[in-house]
């Protein structure tokens, strides 16, 4: 398995792990009511705003740990540049992630239009955010494995 494939798999698991742990922590300890009935916009806005730095920090830490373990096990260094294939795969996976996120965004707006609560809209938004990242990582793994 190439370094790029391993990196994408680590990114996939770190995305899932950080998102799930963060959401469990926030919804369990910082939400006074059932999250699905919580229409406090400040709560949902804060949840999304904080999710971004938490994810960035968590991903950096997990990536460094992966680099150290990978170096010890395989004695392989991270490529210090990305070539044309890496850039193409990154573009394609970013496009897939963007399409999924935009679909979720449109769906969440539609939910508001047909009368669902603000909490439903935010749950849809956060789900599409996480799903888009997962789809982006999965597509990277697929493209590195199968080519295009």
């Amino acid at each position, binding site marked *: 398995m*190439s*370094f*790029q494939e391993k990196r994408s798999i680590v990114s996939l698991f770190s995305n899932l792990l950080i998102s799930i742990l963060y959401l469990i922590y926030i919804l369990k300890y910082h939400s006074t009511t059932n999250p699905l009935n919580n229409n406090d916009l400040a709560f949902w806005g804060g949840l999304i705003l904080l999710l971004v730095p938490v994810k960035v920090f968590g991903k950096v830490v997990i990536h460094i740990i992966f680099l150290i373990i990978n170096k010890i096990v395989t004695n392989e260094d991270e490529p210090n540049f990305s*070539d*044309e294939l890496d850039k193409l795969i990154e573009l394609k996976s970013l496009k897939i992630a963007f399409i999924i996120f935009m679909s979720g965004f449109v769906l969440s707006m539609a939910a508001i239009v047909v009368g669902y609560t603000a909490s439903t809209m935010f749950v849809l938004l956060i789900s599409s955010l996480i799903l888009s990242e997962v789809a982006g990582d999965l597509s990277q793994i697929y493209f*590195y494995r199968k080519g295009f």
Partner: protein
Amino acid sequence: MSKESIKNNIRTLRFFNNEMTQQQLADKVGVTRQTIVAIEKGNYSPSLELAFKIAIAFNKPLEEVFSYHQEKSG
């Protein structure tokens, strides 16, 4: 319907160039080994620039490294 594909002789050419490794070729043309693997397997068609660089690395004309095939089907 026609199926198009670009075939290559990189594996053979590496063999006849003192069994050059994929990493050595990758270093010569400035890409990662993963990209050479993908090209060799036919999973990725390189840019024209990279194709020329690979041909120059083997000191061969482009058409001796890559060939274009169009198969008619259906």
